[in-house]
Each structure stands twice: as C-alpha cells, then as structure tokens.
C-alpha cells in the first residue's frame, strides 16, 4: 500500500489501495506500442520546419525569440542543428522500435529541449506531442511492434512480457481527456465563444476563402449567418466536452472516439494546426481495452484473403484467428463468450480494426447486428475458458 495511506481512515485506505491496484495492475502495452509507431511521423512533421530552416542556414536565434529562462542552455548553431537531426533519427528509430527505450527518450529530450528554447516555439499541438512522447518514454512499449522484438525472436531468445503496470496508460488517457475538456471548458466559460460571436467572426472574415470552396450559395449564407453560429458554437463546445467525458465510459466510448475523429478532421480542413489532427486521432488508440487476443475469430481456411486482411490490420491485436470448418461463415467469439456469425461478425471485426473502425462502428447500430450481438448463442466452453485466461474484460 501507498505510504500516504498509512494512518488514513479505513475507507480512504481502501480507496487508495484500489487506486494503487488500478495503476499498478499489469496490462497490455499494445496500444502504446502502436502509438509509439505512429508518433514517429508526428515528430518528423514537427521537426521539419526547424530542420528546413537549418538547412537554409537559419535557426531560431537568427530572428525574434524569447527564452523562458536566462539559465536555459543554448547550443552553438552547428550543435543545435546536430541535436535536431539526432531527434529526427531518433524518431525514426522510435517508430521502427530499434533500441526503443533509448530512441524514445532521445526523441522526447530533443523535442522538449527545442520547445522550451523559446516561448515562440510553444503551440498546443506541440505540448500534446511532448506529453505523448514523455509517457511513451516511461512506458515499456518497445517489446512488440518493434525491430527489437524481431531481433530477439531471430536470436531465439524468449519474448519479453508485453504487459506492464497500467499507470502510463491511465496518465495518457487522463491527458487525452483533459485536452478536450480544457478546450471545451474554456469555450463554455467565455460568453463570446458560447454565444457564437467567435466562430461567426472567424467565418465572416474568411468569407472570400469560403466562397472559393465548391459550396452552394445557400451554404455560404448559412455559414456566415450569425444565428447559425449561436447554435453551432454550443454544438462545438458540447462536442468537446462529450469527447472528454464520453471516453471514460464503456457505453459512450466508441461514440466519443467516432466523434473525435470527425472533430479532428473538421479542424484539419478549417485551420492550420500542425500535427494536432494526426496526433489526436493516433492517441485515440489508447482507449482500446488493454488486453490482447481475447476474442476469437474463426475463418474458413478457404477464405485466406480474409484472414490475411484481418491479421494485417489488427494492429491492436484484438483477435486470435483460428480455422473454422470448411464452408462455415465467419464467426467471432467476443470476450463475454457471445458468438456472432456471418455479416454481423464482419461488421463487428471491422469495427475493432483501427483503420476500418470509423467506417464500421455505425453499422453496429443496425438492428440485424444488434440482434446478433445480443442473441448470439454461447460459445463453446473451451473458447470461453481461453478468453478468461487471456484476461479479457
């Protein structure tokens, strides 16, 4: 038990013990491993303008910048460019999973150093990137989806445990939700934002750009109408708050993820937000239940393409693929033992693969799929037992 809990009332002690248990429980690091792979390109995109300037012979100190603190170390020009280049190399190594921990820590160090060099370097998307890299650096997320793991296998050494204490995952979930929450709250508390003034003025000022889009006149009129923004602003604020809160509950999580993807794509088309959209969508992977291969997918060996497709896209390792009797339909056994077959099973599988989830999640609302998920027959006892052993929840 946590030292802070000693001497506390029994109920508080129990609460702290439960909290400790939650944070210390070993869970799959698969989602963080996937995020690590996806974070590398975000770092390269982030460093690109700095490196591009450096190759043209310019660095931050050649023009206005504002150090956070006088004591913060500033490197000679050539060394600074070398450090940025090291950061780019480390980001590639981090994505590939080569000397993963070292690469991730180095990437984090370089990005952090560069951002804190000047107040002018700071943007919300970079702050989010920094948080993600910091938590990836402390999580053992290089034991799968990595060259390190591949080299280990090639040398015939046993694979390292891919589960680890859950606290970095919980912290990143908190940060992810906090970002939507803080953004939504700041707009909720600002009468100009919640009343629609801010969005209305932004759109009206960009009217020329809006008219350059292939939009009908009525759409342009609607988007520049103040009354429309009175409602639209509230919708935006409530969307952000819904994402922030909805991610925490199982019943609303998939809807929150789906809405978050739309939200990020909408932002990307309407504003320059550097790596925020890409990173925001990539981080959503961490909301997957942190256990792997705890659903069984049975595929007729004659339908090899299906098996290849699912295995290739199952980046979060949701399914254990087993052969089904020839001629039988696709069959999925969910964590609770529910068995789904045929088209509903296809929809379910696609809804659990990161690349197809956004398209497939709405199909889970179709009556036929809902019926199948509710009323599917129980799985054979052996499969249920295997599921339980895999730690499914």
């Amino acid at each position: 038990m946590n030292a802070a809990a000693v001497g506390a009332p029994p109920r508080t002690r129990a609460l702290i013990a439960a909290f400790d248990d939650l944070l210390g429980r070993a869970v799959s690091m698969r989602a963080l491993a996937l995020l690590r792979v996806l974070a590398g390109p975000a770092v390269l995109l982030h460093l690109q303008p700095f490196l591009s300037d450096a190759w043209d012979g310019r660095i931050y100190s050649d023009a206005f910048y504002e150090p956070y603190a006088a004591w913060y170390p500033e490197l000679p020009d050539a060394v600074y460019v070398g450090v940025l280049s090291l950061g780019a190399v480390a980001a590639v190594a981090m994505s590939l999973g080569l000397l993963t921990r070292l690469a991730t820590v180095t990437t984090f160090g370089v990005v952090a150093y560069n951002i804190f060099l000047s107040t002018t370097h700071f943007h919300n998307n970079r702050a989010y990137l920094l948080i993600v890299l910091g938590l990836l650096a402390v999580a053992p997320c290089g034991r799968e989806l990595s060259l390190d793991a591949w080299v280990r296998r090639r040398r015939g050494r046993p694979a390292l445990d891919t589960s680890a204490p859950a606290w970095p995952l919980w912290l990143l979930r908190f940060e992810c939700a906090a970002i939507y929450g803080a953004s939504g709250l700041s707009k909720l508390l600002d009468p100009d934002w919640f009343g629609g003034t801010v969005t209305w003025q932004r759109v009206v000022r960009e009217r020329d750009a809006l008219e350059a889009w292939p939009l009908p006149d009525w759409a342009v009129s609607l988007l520049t109408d103040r009354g429309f923004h009175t409602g639209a602003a509230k919708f935006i604020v409530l969307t952000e708050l819904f994402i922030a809160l909805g991610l925490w509950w199982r019943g609303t999580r998939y809807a929150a993820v789906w809405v978050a993807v739309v939200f990020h794509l909408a932002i990307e088309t309407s504003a320059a937000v550097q790596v925020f959209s890409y990173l925001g969508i990539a981080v959503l992977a961490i909301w997957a239940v942190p256990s792997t291969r705890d659903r069984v997918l049975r595929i007729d060996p004659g339908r090899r393409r299906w098996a290849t497709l699912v295995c290739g896209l199952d980046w979060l390792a949701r399914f254990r693929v087993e052969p089904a009797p020839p001629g039988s339909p696709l069959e999925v056994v969910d964590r609770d033992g529910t068995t789904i077959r045929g088209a509903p099973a296809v929809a379910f599988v696609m809804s659990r693969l990161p690349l197809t989830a956004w398209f497939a999640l709405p199909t889970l609302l179709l009556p036929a799929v809902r019926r199948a998920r509710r009323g599917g027959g129980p799985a054979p006892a052996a499969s249920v037992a295997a599921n339980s052993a895999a730690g499914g929840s």
Partner: protein
Amino acid sequence: MVVVAVVALQLALVARGYLSDHKEFAFQMFPESSTWRADVVRVTADGRRVPIERPWSGYRWDELVQSRGLRYPWVRHHADAGLDNQLAFLDAALDWVADNTPRDAETRYLEARVTSWHNDDSPRVGVLRSHFREGVG
C-alpha cells in the same frame, strides 16, 4: 505519487491558462476572434519617429521578427492565441529588436501603437515600448 503529481500539475496548468499570457499546457484552442494591428516606430535620440516598414542600418523588421504573426504588424491580423498572448509577443519582440540591432546607433527605443479588437468589442488603442537602448542619445 507520480500519477497524482502529474494530474495535479496538469490541472494547475489548465487553471493558470486563465491568468497567463502564453497559456502553456492549458489547451485553450482557438480562444478568440480578436484582431490587432500596430504602427511600430523607432524613436531616435533626436526625437524622430521612423516607421519600421522602412529598413534601417541594414535591418528589416520582417527579417528580424518572423514568427507568431508579427512579421507585418501594420496589417490587421487575427490574434491566433488571443490578444493577451499576441501583445505579449509583440512586447517581447520590441525588446528583442532593441537588443539585437547593434549597427543601429540612432534608435533610443521602439514603440508600438496597437489597435486591438477583442472579438466584436469596440477597438482599443494602447502603446507598447521597448526598453531604452544603452549607449544611444
């Protein structure tokens, strides 16, 4: 303890965002539709007020100040991260230019007469000045 500390720090930074100019880690996205423009001049030792649109002593404002929407301050701009943030950057930029133009032997200080429109409020006019440059005048 690490988790509790990080959560507390994050919440504190979100709260700090309502008070600070730069709002680091406060995640207040697209906070305002406010706009601003500024007439920036160099005030010389003999009292002349020379617009920074004109190059001086081999310097150009748009080469010295390139980021955070400050390159062409005389053009009305959106304050991307809010007016407080934008004007804090402009204030810092005036100081930086004052400190980093050693060939300029005539400028005593830089001054920006800023007109700002907070969302749809009426315009406000304010003045920002760099510190005095040593050894001039």
